[in-house]
């Protein structure tokens, strides 16, 4: 079980990093030139990414990058980072796309607020304001949504692990369902539920630390 947990942790951890970086990059790119060509492309990309089921995306990635280009192995987790990339992208793409829209919309809202207008009036560049001032303000909402998406990613591991033959908790759970092994299904559910609770707790703490208003409520 420890080995399965470590496999699933590797998958979820990497996919979470990918979703995080991808969403910030896409959202930021879109916000740089609102309603421009890049913004439109990122919007369409996010829509497609958020609508593509993981089993289909995974199969397409295997076909394109493992089979045709040969850059990555088609299965397994035994070849270091090379074997991690496709599963991470498969699992992280959908939440990354959903979160990118949140970043994009959040940044646009922040840029209409007085502090941003003041900064622009003082001669600061839009990129600098977006990165240094607006992005931290989007963080609490982004973190809350990220927690929910991470939960969905945990469920997604049930699809992605068998597809890439990763012997994690998700694959074990699916096998338990297929063979009606209730003990295994219960164990899998217990792990998932415990993980959800811990994750939500971590997100709440992180949001409180990020948001000074929430952090200082306890001081009053």
């Amino acid at each position, binding site marked *: 079980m420890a*080995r399965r947990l*470590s*496999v699933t*942790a*590797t*998958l979820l*951890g*990497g996919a*979470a*990093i990918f979703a*995080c970086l991808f969403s910030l990059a896409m959202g930021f790119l879109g916000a740089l030139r609102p309603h421009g060509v890049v913004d439109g492309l990122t919007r369409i990309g996010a829509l497609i990414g958020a609508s593509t089921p993981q089993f289909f995306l995974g*199969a397409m990635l*295997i*076909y394109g990058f*493992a*089979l045709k280009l*040969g850059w990555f*192995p*088609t*299965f*397994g*987790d*035994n070849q*270091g*980072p090379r074997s*991690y990339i496709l599963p991470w992208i498969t699992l992280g793409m959908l939440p990354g796309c959903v979160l990118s829209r949140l970043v994009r919309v959040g940044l646009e809202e922040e840029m209409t607020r007085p502090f941003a207008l003041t900064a622009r009036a003082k001669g600061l560049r839009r990129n600098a304001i977006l990165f240094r001032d607006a992005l931290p303000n989007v963080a609490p909402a982004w973190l809350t949504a990220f927690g929910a998406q991470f939960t969905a990613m945990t469920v997604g591991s049930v699809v992605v692990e*068998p*597809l*890439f*033959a990763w*012997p994690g908790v998700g*694959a*074990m759970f*699916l*096998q338990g*369902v*297929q*063979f*009606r092994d209730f003990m295994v299904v219960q164990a899998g559910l217990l792990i998932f539920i415990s993980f959800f609770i811990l994750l939500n707790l971590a997100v709440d703490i*992180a949001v409180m*630390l*990020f948001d000074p208003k929430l952090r200082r409520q306890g001081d009053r």
Partner: protein
Amino acid sequence: MKRRNLLQGMAAAGLLPLVPGFATRALAAPGDTVRFAIAKPAGDMNPHAYKGLWGAQDLIYEPLVKYGPGGEIQPCLAASWSLSDDGKTLALELQPGVTFQDGTPWNAEAMKWNLDRWVPTGDHDWINHVRLFDHLEIKGDHSVVMHFKEAPLSLFFELSYTQPTRYLSPASVAADGSFDKAIGTGPWKLTSASDSLSAFERYEGYWGTAPGFDKLELVVLPDSRGRMAALRAGDIDVTGGDFMAPITANEATTLKDAGIAVAVHSGIAMLLGFNPDRNPALADKRVRNAISQGFDRVAIAQVLYSGLAEPAGSMFPPSVPLSGNQFAPDAHDPDAARALLDAAGWTGDGIRSKDGAALKVEFVVSNDQIAGSRSMAEVMQAQLAEIGVELTIRSVDHASRHSDIPARQYDMALFLTFGAPYEPFGTMMGYLYSPYDNGVDGKMVIDAANLDPLMEAATAASEATVQAQVQAVYDWIHAETALAPLLYTPSIWAHGPRVEGFTPPATEYDTPYDGLIIKAG
């Protein structure tokens, strides 16, 4: 905690998966290793427990005689044999110079130790020679005589089975006698096993012809798309088989188009079972006959199996020993089917009815059991609607299939014959003889009054009369349309360009490593 510290901590935690060895599993570099893809973990390696992947056990354990190509019985742990005229005594000269993989010698004592483990349990009485076994007489270190109460039919086929008639090292059990380690006399030693990989290395002390490569791995790839991609990319070398990792006809076509070598050979039969105990409409032979004529076997074979399957008219394909006379497959004849239903009293436009009850039949299929069976059921649903039968498809998972069918929770269901070397008697006893518990595979026909006596006569027949007695069973099934043979489905294997010398296995319970070598360079 400061926000900066939190961010740094989160970043560090996020990078954890990149640390080498954080989550890895051992998988040897290709080189001298041939990789087979399997759909499910190899599981329990006890050769006497009917669990685990039988093809994996075939690598480790050997029988007294082997089922060779075309059903030829070949020496294995028995070097020679002599069956008495009355068929009740079998004298065996055991293969000399054979040792188990732990160094324990293979001899008469080891054989007796194994027989004592499985014969008295009663769990294997479905096998004729186990049920009729009397005692083992040890004549010498490598000379024994098996005595039977009566002459067992299909004795040599039975001796070649994968379960339970394979021989385990007496030193491989725990102190309480329970199975502990997988140690046989076979050419492959199990070196590691997990839910994702079973690794074997060549047993250098093997008595027979050594395999042509050093290491063999059974890699678990549950998703068929993943298996196909891995084969095409060269990440695995061989996959396929009815039980190891089935390849559908469509997948075979795709693989062929991609330049992958595909081997198709005679497989097993797919049969349609009726359950009149649950659906009284199916108690009428005319209704069963109408259903059998109501769907188009030729079209299904052509479209869904890309022409690799053949319409079936009998319970077994002609390649099976004692398969009897081949009956012509029922032709697709909607008019004849409608006439049969009319004669049976099922009338009306659209879905037919009788005494106010509509002609509805529940069809249980499991894609986990038979890949593509859901699509086939939909074709049959459309075709039977044309003759006024409403087919309701209940698509179930692997576990439900294995609970609902033995519990007779179906009106119609698909069954597969067991394949060599379990044919014909293994399949017939399992599916047709009501007193025998067929476990998760369930029963196809239950008729204690008519069928069971025929089965008893067939299994008690002598070699001289068995053909006629078995034919009597087939004739009764055909006359009653007690089941509807659908297709003879192909067994499909595929291998990548890294290996050569592939030949399909003699039975689908064997792993086809014989003659396989890794290409030079």
